[in-house]
């Protein structure tokens, strides 16, 4: 289980980005979280990926209470959650070749010897040509870089996957390809997926269950199109 209870989180205590959000995800389940831009989706995704310590509330991962750590969640829990970010340009170290980008988590966790084989396997899985692996981020397109970032997220075989607007910058065919990669991986390993986005059509087709931001943030005034100019596009009728 990945469980977030009554999460309040943000970058400034007076104006938290997320207030009182609840969310739970069973292994093998996929949840699409919809919400207007600026509502706090990405912050919640960071909390779910154990990258951001909430100011209030509890995060439970596979029975371990994650909150209460002083600075960072322990490595074994962090690596249990794979993350893909919205902007591959920012999520890739500009100095690393794609090969090293994908292999980096293996090296960081002391599994250097497997690196070459795993990188080749994942490159094939995400559809990244072998010639691209020797290039650096500025020498490939956004779509190709996002494929590499997805490969990096899968390289440690995480039991959970958090995709924060993974496809927002991509064209339709790359989107379809990457969603298929994620779904294949889930079917193989039974991993749970939290997909955050603002495209209801995509998320409803992709995920078994979708939730709107208003449904997970209880006891708060709902975010409506009146309060948010962009809200009307993503609120379901």
């Amino acid at each position: 289980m990945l469980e977030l209870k009554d999460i309040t989180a943000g970058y400034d205590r007076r104006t938290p980005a997320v207030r009182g959000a609840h969310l739970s995800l069973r292994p093998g389940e996929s949840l699409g979280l919809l919400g207007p831009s600026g509502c706090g989706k990405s912050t919640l995704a960071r909390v779910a990926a154990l990258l951001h310590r909430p100011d209030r509330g509890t995060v439970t991962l596979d029975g371990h209470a994650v909150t209460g750590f002083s600075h960072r969640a322990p490595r074994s829990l962090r690596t249990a959650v794979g993350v893909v970010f919205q902007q591959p340009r920012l999520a890739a170290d500009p100095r690393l070749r794609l090969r090293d980008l994908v292999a980096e988590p293996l090296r960081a966790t002391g599994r250097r010897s497997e690196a070459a084989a795993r990188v080749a396997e994942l490159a094939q899985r995400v559809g990244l040509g072998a010639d691209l692996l020797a290039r650096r981020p500025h020498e490939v397109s956004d779509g190709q870089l996002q494929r590499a970032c997805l490969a990096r997220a899968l390289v440690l075989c995480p039991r959970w996957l958090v995709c924060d607007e993974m496809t927002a910058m991509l064209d339709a065919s790359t989107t379809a390809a990457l969603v298929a990669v994620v779904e294949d991986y889930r079917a193989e390993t039974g991993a749970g997926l939290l997909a955050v986005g603002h495209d209801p059509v995509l998320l409803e087709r992709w995920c078994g269950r979708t939730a709107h931001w208003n449904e997970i943030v209880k006891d708060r005034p709902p975010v409506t199109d009146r309060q948010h100019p962009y809200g009307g596009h993503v609120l379901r009728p």
Partner: protein
Amino acid sequence: MAEQVWRTRGGARRSTRTLRVRACAAVMAVVVLAVLVVPPLAQLDQQAVDLAAKLQPPSWAHPFGTDDVGRDLLLRCVHGLRVSLLVGLVAALVATVIGTAVGAAAGALGGWADRIAMRVVDTLSAIPHLLLGIFVVAVFRPGLWPVVASVAVTHWLSTARIVRAEVLSLRGRPYVDAAVSGGASRWRVAVRHLVPGILPQAGLAAVLMIPHAMWHESALSFLGLGLPAHQASLGNLVQGARGSLLAGHWWPTLFPGLLLIVPTLAIAGLAGAWRDRLNPRRRSELTL
């Protein structure tokens, strides 16, 4: 048509730039070669006094003239430049290492460590650094290494600030998040992602500090606090020639002064070109 105009203009601008960079590189090559080759190979005594030939203007025998006790100024200038460059290089290197370590630690650790380190930097910055440098020199016997130490311990502050700001900016990037999520320890994030990111900035700061450190050494020597008076350094040469300037002897001050200014400009030009390559959008003037 318009494209063609643009091309010629761009080409002209580019060639002026390359020309400037090449000129700077040539000057530095000559200076470094002279400093490395002349003193060990030419077994000439820079201290050789020839009172019969004192204060001679530049001539073929003495291209830079002679000083008030008849020592050849070209030879003394080369020896002085050697000392000044050595002080500049070593002091800039030490200062950059200290500054990078303090700045990177402050930026990477954050919290109390950051606050304490930065308040120390602020406090030291508030003291005029020439004064602080004089204090350091005064503690030791006069010599080369106290001068290096004095310049190094007073010049790491700006590097620490630059490096800290760079680390803070890098630390917030999503690729650091991705590395943390991939199981990287703090140490690994620092070594793999943060340090490679700050090295160009730190290197640039180091190069720009070389001329600054040379000037500092000269200032200390000029004030009589740096190297012993018999040891040639650009500062000592200018200091020793002050008196003869009033008597109309311009060459003993002009040449050491020029040798201080020309390499400074050349190093600044090269550093500027390097900075342009690092960040093409920031093609502004250099501040030394």
